[in-house]
């Protein structure tokens, strides 16, 4: 329970973040080892500083061995518990601090400003570790470095000079360095911890808001679903009643009222279409994250859609062609989404083409990572002033209405919404009476 409570209050503290910090710290350590290695070689060969290089090498080997161990632990132990991961990170930090202290001792103690490197661990622990743990680490840093400097000052352990200044024997100098160092360590901890607190609080707030938003969204979705069902039932009954009368009594009814009944049936069909597309649109606009696992063979869907639309094209004497280079591309998603996009776009191209016109569908992959589908017709075109509005809900351009009087004005909004959901793009070029070219791009993720 303690851990769950901890995780709730420290939103950035989770197993993934710890894991990524661990990997990161192993990498940084490789870098540190390399730099130390080069520095040691340089010092050994190109300077007259006399250091106990054997011990330095030994320390570096110890650090190297440790990092190799970390590396393999991370590589082969896949299932860490949160507590184990946290303990692992704390051990990392502690061992690093000890090794750094030994190194500082070996390369000049208080004379060598390399003690600034302690700050890295102070910052790391302040960011990652929960509660009062950062202050414990910082206190340990102060004790380690303070102890080292004091022991060298009191000559309990030997001091290794890198410049013959003998500053380590000067009380005031040691005191000054330690005071400034202590203040720096605690102030850094305080700043990082405080900042992280603000950061964590705002994350908690965002998470809460997000949760509420998703709940509200879900409620809206359910309400919409319920409402649409309630709207659908009566209109389905109306249409079925009209159709059954038309079917059974068509001989008993005069031709004029019969035509009117048929028109009523067509209008109720239109209303059903609108409800259907509204539901679709609402689903696709939903903020609730979609989780897909199916790999959709997009070009196969495209071919099927074209085959289904061929009879309509033929009835208008329109030539419908497909040019495609390959059929193997897959996109993770829902097949019906792609079906809706292709059907809507190609159906529109056919619908707004003149008799004897031509609709060409072209699919190709560009830059290895984009699937482009271009649908081109030589139909009525879209006036310039309407171009930017065609993806708006319920919008139908004037010349479209003149030619085909049915249509919900929702098809293209749905298309756009679906393409947006797949991080794709749709663009339109059109000229009145010359034709329209619609270009759809879906990113292909490997």
């Amino acid at each position, binding site marked *: 329970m303690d851990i769950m409570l901890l995780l709730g209050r420290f939103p950035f503290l989770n197993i993934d973040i710890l894991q990524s910090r661990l990997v990161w710290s192993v990498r940084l350590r490789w870098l540190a080892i390399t730099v130390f290695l080069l520095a040691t070689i340089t010092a050994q060969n190109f300077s007259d500083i006399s250091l106990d290089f054997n011990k330095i090498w030994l320390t570096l080997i110890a650090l190297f061995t440790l990092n190799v161990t970390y590396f393999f632990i991370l590589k082969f132990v896949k299932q860490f518990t949160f507590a184990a991961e946290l303990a692992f990170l704390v051990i990392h930090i502690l061992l690093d601090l000890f090794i750094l202290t030994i190194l500082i001792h070996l390369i000049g103690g208080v004379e060598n400003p390399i003690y600034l490197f302690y700050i890295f661990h102070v910052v790391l622990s302040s960011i990652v570790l929960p509660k009062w743990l950062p202050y414990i680490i910082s206190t340990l840093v102060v004790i380690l470095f303070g102890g080292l400097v004091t022991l060298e000052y009191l000559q309990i352990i030997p001091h290794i000079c890198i410049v013959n200044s003998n500053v380590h024997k000067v009380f005031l100098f040691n005191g000054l360095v330690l005071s400034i160092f202590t203040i720096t360590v605690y102030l850094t901890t305080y700043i990082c911890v405080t900042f992280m607190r603000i950061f964590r609080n705002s994350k908690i707030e965002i998470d809460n808001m997000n949760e509420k938003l998703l709940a509200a969204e879900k409620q809206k979705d359910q309400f919409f679903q319920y409402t649409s069902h309630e709207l659908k*039932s009566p209109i389905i009954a109306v249409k079925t009643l009209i*159709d059954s009368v038309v079917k059974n009594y068509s001989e008993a009814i005069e031709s004029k009222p019969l035509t009117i009944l048929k028109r009523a049936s067509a209008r109720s069909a239109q209303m059903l279409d609108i409800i259907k597309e509204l539901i679709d649109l609402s689903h696709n606009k939903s903020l609730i994250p979609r989780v897909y696992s199916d790999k959709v063979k997009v070009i196969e869907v495209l071919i099927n859609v074209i085959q289904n639309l061929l009879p309509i094209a033929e009835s208008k004497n329109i030539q419908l062609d497909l040019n495609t280079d390959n059929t193997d591309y897959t996109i993770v998603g829902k097949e019906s989404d792609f079906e809706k996009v292709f059907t809507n776009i190609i159906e529109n191209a056919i619908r707004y083409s003149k008799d004897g016109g031509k609709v060409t569908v072209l699919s190709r992959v560009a830059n290895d990572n984009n699937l482009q589908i271009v649908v081109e017709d030589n139909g009525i075109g879209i006036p310039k002033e309407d171009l930017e509005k065609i993806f708006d809900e319920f919008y139908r351009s004037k010349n479209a209405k003149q030619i085909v009087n049915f249509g919900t004005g929702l098809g293209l909004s749905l298309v756009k919404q679906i393409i947006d959901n797949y991080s794709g793009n749709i663009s339109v070029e059109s000229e009145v009476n010359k034709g329209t070219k619609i270009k759809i791009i879906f990113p292909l993720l490997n």
Partner: protein
Amino acid sequence: MSKKIIIIDDDIDLVEAMRMILEGAGYDVIDAQDGTIGFDRILTEKPDLVILDVMMGTQDEGFHVAYQIRSNEKTSDIPIIMLTAVQQETGFVFDKDTDEDFLPVSEFVEKPVNPEKLIELVKINLGH
């Protein structure tokens, strides 16, 4: 003797509309407005075909009735035509090919059903 069809649907207007179509095509039509009554009528009247709405009272009442029909040996071989509303989201997948194993419904038809289509489906499922 003409074949007997039972329509189980809680929308009385829809029942009357389908009755008109089916009687016009020469079938005897009986009906029920909910699943329980519907199943009782199936047991007593032994219809040749069942037209069943998925969503009555509850979201999936129709499915329960279908299971009942299939698991009772007196009724298990009566063909069932199941009516679904447009884009119904009930958590069930309306795919005849994949659902047949555990839900042997003869047909899924989306409402509103076109009269010609209804008659055609009934004919096919009655085996003529």
